[in-house]
């Protein structure tokens, strides 16, 4: 089982399992069901605001890079790719920040639409963390929100 940290990207071929925990961050899963290649991107913020920061932390730079890596380096077929998205919770009411979770989700949905990649499943929002486990063989994502029952997407 491979764990993905904040702002990180992991791409693997089946059989393999990718997992992460999400708060206000958004986890984007891309899967090619034919070649059984899958990846998980852990997005922290909607837009990159510096020049020398890691591009996979941001939706606007991380998602195009993710798609490029899936197709060019991992060998996935672009037309076969679909996405699943999770996370984007509002963790603290009083942390003085904007609703980062919601902004992340909106940016991710916009970019995936522009890139022509379907979102086939999603679970976003709320105020608690998400524990997601992605099976790159089946494309199933097992999602458990803190304090709730496990659901497979």
């Amino acid at each position: 089982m491979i764990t993905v940290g904040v702002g990180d990207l992991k791409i693997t071929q089946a059989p393999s399992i990718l997992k992460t925990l999400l708060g206000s961050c958004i986890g984007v899963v891309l899967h090619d069901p034919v070649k059984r290649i899958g990846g998980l991107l852990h997005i922290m913020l909607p837009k990159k605001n510096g020049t020398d920061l890691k591009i996979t932390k941001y939706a606007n730079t991380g998602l195009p890079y993710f798609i490029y890596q899936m197709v060019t380096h991992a060998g996935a077929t672009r037309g076969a790719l679909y996405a699943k998205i999770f996370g984007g919770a509002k963790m603290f009411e009083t942390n003085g920040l904007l609703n980062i979770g919601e902004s992340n989700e909106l940016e991710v949905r916009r970019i995936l639409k522009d890139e022509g990649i379907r979102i086939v499943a999603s679970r976003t929002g709320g105020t608690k963390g998400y524990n997601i486990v992605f099976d790159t063989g089946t494309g199933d994502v097992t999602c458990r929100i803190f304090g709730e029952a496990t659901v497979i997407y």
Partner: protein
Amino acid sequence: MNITQDRLKILEIMSRLSIDRASRALSKSLRTGARISLSKVFVADLSETTEKMNEDQREMISVMVDFKGNEGCRLLFMLPLEGSLILTDLFLRQRIGTSKECDVFTESAVQELGNILASHISNALVSDFNAKLIPQPPRVHNDYAGVIFSNLVLEQGMVNDSILLIETIFEISGSKLECYLFLVPEMKSFAKLLDSIGVGT
């Protein structure tokens, strides 16, 4: 993030002094030995350190305290839900095992612990190093360990790919409490503090 070894060393000394003071105060409040010892002060890669924390999928209760003033900082204490019951018993001076479920008393105990730690850490830094740190009201949150930790480093992670982290080992004598206590100093303001006490870049 660029920080010299000298500055890290000074920060380590400052952390050790303030954590010792918080440790003594906590022992007094709990009427049992609470030992918080500094593990390390280090600059950690955001993705690597959160990846490591995401391995810990236990359900935790946490208290987070922001410090305002001239020096920005954030403190996080978290422990597993079952450990919080022991902590509640210690605060309420009742036999360990009396508290059976997480309730308002548990939240209150964790919040109080955050208050004690934050106020003594800031007192030490204010009196010994002339810092200006004002602890804000503690915020209690239940969630997965990795999610709570990500919240701790979120703001620093917005402007840097690495974070300055002060990691401790927290033990309460006679109990098997496994706790995390982290401090995340805001690097720019701490650099000013180090300048003011004569620690050059």
